[in-house]
Structure formats: C-alpha cells, structure tokens
C-alpha cells in the first residue's frame, strides 16, 4: 500500500475538527488521559502498597477490601495494576518516542541527501526488516539480558527501521514539491528547508505511527513479560502480572482477566485514536 502523503499539518482546522468530532477519538483520548493520570499519580491514588505481601490472603476474589482481589502473594491487584500502568506506559512511550525521533532523523537525512548514507542505512534497514519481529526481539533480548531497559532498546530496534523507511519515502516526494524547489532556488540552507518545509509534513504520519506504536509496544511489553523476558519481579508490570495471573488462571481468574482487560483497553484506545488520526490526515477523506 502506497502511503498517502498527508498534506495537512496538525494545526490545520480540518484535521483537528475531525479529531474532536469523532466520538471514538474523544473517548480514546479520555481513557488514555485517565491511564496517564493513573500512571503519574499511582503512588498517591493507589489503595495499598504494591509490594505488601499477605500470603494468608492469597488469590482472593474481588471484595470491598481489595477491589480487584489479591494475587499469589496476597498483594492488591488493583494497586499493582496502577503501578504497572506506570511501567507499561513508560516503556511504551519511551521506546515509541525514541523510535519515532530516530526514524525522523534517519529518514529525513537519508531521503533529503541521498548518497552513500542513504544506501548504507537503506541496506541496514532492509536487513533489520527481514527478521520476523518477535524472533528478532527474542534473540536480542536473550543476547543482552531481560530487563526493561533492554526491552525499550529492543522495541526501538523493531520500530525504527520501518518508520525510517516511511519517513524517507515521504521526504523523497516532499523534496520534489514546488515550494521546496523554490526555497532552494532562493538559497535557503538545507537545514532550514528540512525543519520548516519537510519535517512538519511528516509529523502527521509520525503521530499516527506513534499512537499505533504505543498499542504495539504495550502488547510487546506484555508478551515479553509473559515469556519472562521483560521487567523482573517484584516490580509490577502488566506483562509479569499477565504471566503470574496465567499461572493461577483456574484458581483465580480475576488476576489475568483484570490485567488482560487493562492491556486490551489501552491497546484498543491507542489503536482507535491512531485510526481516527490516520483518517483525519487523509486528504481523500477530507476533500468530501
């Protein structure tokens, strides 16, 4: 699928209007903001200590004392989910943001200047993109060790090449637009052109990728926590909670149901928001 090059910038009215009038987008944004608030203020609003063990009360179903029940060590699930939000969002946001920033840098320079740099980076991107993502991630995590910093790095490695290629193709076509030619003919320097004329037009697609990337990163963190290759105990993260919850699925389904639901909802919201944004930027749909 050839990506449609968005011609509209963020600040232009049609885009924002579409975003704010879409019910899906608004709900998604509200939910995401709620998650973010929980992540930031977890230590203030969480009902209990996420590390407090009370083994005699393990695996209790939801009750007034523990709104989402307790886990296998008697810890409060709701509290751990809240702290887990912090970790999941942090991991997701850091990796996606850095990947996008890196992709922007690499793609713009490669697309604008071309030449050897473009060729070399292109080949590296080809190599990285020829790995099935999960396998590549597994091999890399095994090599560098399972912890959240490495997980962030691995997610960046997974996302950056594809995004960089996309940015590059956008830059390539933008470079040929008339106003860019015009700017160059009056002697504007390259950096200014890139910053003022080219990059802003890529931001639309990048922001869509950011949203979709958040959903994907949250899933990846969960998948790796599930395989035991992400955050390590006793830190609460959605991935490890998923794993711990699945161990006790029959005895206490509430743990993984709650965690799975959190992952699901977050993922859903980011995906939906990303979809709405993609449509918002699509000049075809705006023309109507």
């Amino acid at each position, binding site marked *: 699928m050839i990506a449609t090059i968005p011609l509209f910038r963020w600040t232009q009215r049609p885009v924002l209007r579409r975003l704010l009038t879409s019910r899906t987008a608004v709900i998604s944004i509200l939910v995401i903001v709620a998650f973010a608030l929980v992540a930031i203020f977890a230590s203030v609003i969480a009902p209990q200590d996420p590390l407090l063990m009370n083994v005699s009360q393990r695996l209790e179903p939801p009750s007034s004392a523990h709104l989402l029940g307790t886990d296998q060590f008697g810890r409060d699930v709701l509290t751990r989910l809240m702290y887990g939000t912090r970790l999941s969002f942090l991991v997701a946001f850091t990796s996606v943001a850095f990947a996008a920033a890196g992709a922007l840098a690499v793609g713009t320079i490669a697309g604008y200047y071309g030449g050897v740099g473009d060729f070399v980076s292109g080949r590296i991107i080809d190599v990285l993109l020829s790995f099935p993502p999960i396998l590549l991630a597994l091999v890399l995590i095994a090599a560098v060790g399972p912890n959240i910093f490495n997980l962030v790095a691995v997610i960046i490695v997974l996302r950056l090449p594809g995004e960089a290629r996309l940015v590059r193709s956008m830059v390539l076509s933008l470079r040929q637009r008339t106003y860019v030619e015009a700017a160059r003919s009056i002697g504007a320097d390259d950096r200014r052109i890139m910053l003022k004329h080219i990059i802003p037009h890529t931001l639309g697609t990048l922001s869509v990728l950011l949203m979709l990337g958040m959903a994907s990163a949250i899933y990846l963190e969960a998948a790796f926590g599930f395989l*035991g290759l992400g955050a*390590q105990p006793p830190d609460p993260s959605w991935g490890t909670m998923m*794993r711990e919850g699945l161990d006790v699925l029959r005895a206490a389904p509430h743990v993984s149901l709650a965690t799975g639901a959190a992952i699901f909802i977050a993922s859903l919201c980011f995906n939906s928001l990303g979809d709405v944004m993609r449509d918002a930027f699509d000049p075809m749909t705006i023309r109507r």
Partner: protein
Amino acid sequence: MKSNRDASTLTRRDLLQMLGATGAAAVVAACAPPSGSSPSGSASAPAGTPQRGGSVTVALTSNLTTLDPRIAGTNNALRLVTHVYTNTLIRLNEKLEYEPELAESWDRSPDGLTYTLKLRKGVKFHDGSAFTSKDVKFTLESVMDPALKSSFRTSWVINNVPTKIETPDDYTVRIVWPKEPDEPLYTIAFQRIVPKDYTEKVGTDGYTAKPIGTGPFRFVSQTSGDKVTFERNPDFWKSGLPYLDQLMFRIIPDPATRLAAIQANEIQVVAPPGLNPDDLAITAKDPDLTNYNQLFAGYHYMAFNERNPLFKDKRVRQAICSAVDSQEIINAVIVGEVGHNNVSKKFKEFDPNSPKYSLDVNKTKSLLAEAGFPNGIDFTISGLAALQPYTKVAEVVQNQLNRTGVIRAKLQLLDFTSGFVPKVFSAPFDYQVAISAFTSVSALAAFSTYYGVTAQQTTENFMAFTDPALQRAYDDAKAARFSDPKKYQDSMNALQKIIIDDAPAAFLGYWGNSVTTRKAVQGFIGHPIQSFEYMEQLWLKK
C-alpha cells in the same frame, strides 16, 4: 517453566536438585549392598489388585532432546522417559535404599577398590538379544568416552574413573577403581544399560531414533518435540509387569494447558514438576483426579557468601535467619513443608530436638546492632529467574527481610545456567546472598556442602564457610556410620546443632512437588529424589 515461563516452562531446571545430589552429595551413600538373590517385583504393592491393559499418557514439561540414556543430561523429563525402556544395574528405591535391578547382587572388596556385580540371567533386550556383561562394559565405557559427549562422564571423573571394567564371564562385571570413590553405588545406579551390538551397529544417532533396552516398555515411535509412544514389553524380566499396554509421553510446556488436558482426560498423569501449585486446590476438589504431594529429601536455603565482610560475623547471619518465616514461604509455594533444618524429615537421622530459628524481628534488630549495624544492612539476593517454586521463595524471603525495617534487600533473579551457576557456584563467586534449593542423597550428604575447602572436597564451598567443629563431627559421623549406630546418631545430632548455630545458610523449608493423576491410574510411587520415579508398576482401574 519453569513451570512459569511459558516458555517459562523452563526445562532442565529440574536438575537443580541434582546440584546437591551428584556434585555435592556424591559423597556418602546410605547403604551396604545386600547379597543374595533379588526379589522379582518392585517395591510397594498397589491398592487393590492390578488390572492388565490400558494406555496412559503422561504430560512432560520439557523437551526430550535425546533418547540415549548415556548422553541424557539430568533433565528430569528425560530421566522419567529413559526409565521406561531401559534398566540400571542397581536401583535407588523410594525408601532411599539400593536394591538389585539388572545386577542381582554386588560385593565390595575389603579395600573398597573393586566392586563385583553378579548380573541377572535370562534378561533380553527388546530386539531379542541376551543381556550379558559385555553390554554393561560397553555402556559404562562409552559413557566415559569423551567422544560420546555424555554428561555422566563428569560424575565418573569426580568419583574417579575406574582403571578397568572386567567381564570374567557373561554374568559378572568387575569394576576396579584406583581409589575408593565416595559414592560408587550412586554413580552405578545412574547408568542405564544399552545393548552393545545394536548400538554399535546403528550408532548414537540411530539409537536415539529407535532406542532399545531391557525395560518394561518398548519404543514405538516419536514425533520430535511432541510425543513419544511405548508399548508393553511382553518379555520383561519382571514377570507380570508392566500392567499397561501402552505408555505415551506428550510435551505440554504450559501448566494451564496441562491442567486442562488432565481434566479433559487427554492425559492421565502430569509428571513432575507437576501442575501449578495453585491449581492443586482445583484438582483436589475434582473427583476424577488424585494429587500426590511429594516431599523431597531436600531443602530451600539462603546461603551467605562469607567472602563478603558483611557476612563474616555470625551474628549478622543469625539476625537474618531470625527474619525468615518458613510458614509464610510454604504458604506461598504450597508444595513443601515448614522446616528449619537441612536434614529432611525423611531421613532417620533427623533430630526433632535440633535448635531452630523462628521469626523474631526484635532479635534481628538487636543482633544487627550488636554486630555494629544499628541502622541495618543492605545487600542483594541472587535468586533463580522464572523457575518455580524457587523464584517464589526468593520473592517472599526478600519481602520478609525488607519488612523488618533494618534490612534492605534487593532481588536479582538470574537464569540458572547463564547467571546463577557462573555467579554463585563458580569462582569468583560474585554474589552476596543466594537463594536456591538442594537435594541430598543421605543425611550425611546434606552436610558435605558445608564441610569446607579441605581434603574432603567434593564440592566447591561456594559459601567459603569453614568450621573445624563441624568438620570433626562430620568425620566422626562418617567413621561411625556402619560400625557404631549410637555414635553415628550422636554425631549427626551434633552436626545439626552446629550448623544451626553457625548459620552458614538460612534453612527456609523443605521442598517437594506434586504429581497429579486421574483417579483411575493406580500404583504411582513417589520418590524423594526426582528423576528416580518409575512407571512400570502403574495400572489402570477400569
């Protein structure tokens, strides 16, 4: 995984117990060899009269990498399966006694250097050929041959490689050692015999593709990574056994899937390490299922690295011991028992009057203050990653220690082979505190780890702990073991007292696991040392 990692279902972690067994515990065996002829059946009789026929599928956690018992590591899944089609010369039964299997009797020379085994006659391999001494010689020698790359070779090397293995006639094998080994019977008991002619003809790869032995079941087929099928051996030398017509092993790495499978009667036995402990509550309520909770001859421990100045002071170690609550640990891991000792209750040498630590935070605080740490101490605990129940034990203990307010412990979970073994069990012993578990073959063997870096050495003292009093008591016990039972028990009691007081490690509780079967499956015999379980006596109640 690890019953966890699904993936987490880590595999050969089960060999953790071997850590104590082969390495350390290849020390002193419990028994004197019986002489005379052997009974033809195996140990305990099942409840009710065994019925012939039926097929049982057993779920294994980990992959079977090879079916050659000579090469197999101590992966428990592998051990369980190789028991089905091969036999060993001497069997270590569930009472921790050595009993005859392919060897009817054995005899130790007065100087301890020569063991002569008389082999059972009339035993046939699955291809019809007769079992004779040449097969024993072939098996043992090939294990010791570096070209075979067998991991059992190391246990021979540690216990001294025999100078020669003689076969004076078809039914006698003589093993001659240069120096009396510490654990000859145990080492012999581990080797499962393969046929010389067949194995030489088809080679190792050929053997793995179609294994043959003298065991109760014959190999039928295997699908790599999925299942292995065996059928009844009608010519098995224990007449009347086995009862089942077919035995199948299926690899199901995910514990939740194993539970679902046994409830749906797709499998009839969940082999050790069994189901998730939390699922045991479900299976206990299920009228179609039976749980067998097994206590092992082993214990969970928290070892202190005395190369670190922090732990040189006995008071610091005792303080930490007083911060541990064994009951809470067992509540969290479910399978196991509260314990404060390194000697399993299964051993008769266990002293119920030995001292013990109980949870006493005030004592922790005062001891630490006395030792010069009024503001508490900080250290990192090295535990095992994604391997249950060891990971849970580490998590709970870390939590307990931090609750005292005077200990600030961080947790570092390591993968067993790539992290734990290099850091904790090998020079330069880069750890502060380590939580894991040991099995012991005997009560005395449970102390070999703490003997210290001296001549007795069979295991590296990874704690750098030495205590002359303990060594004296150990030597006394070893000397009196077969000659003076009273002196022996007194020395064992002394050992148990010394080790609690010295606290080279905190003893967190006894460990075990569970096996779950369908109610129809009878005759299951649990074994206190994993990887010694047998299936030949299983039968299905129709």
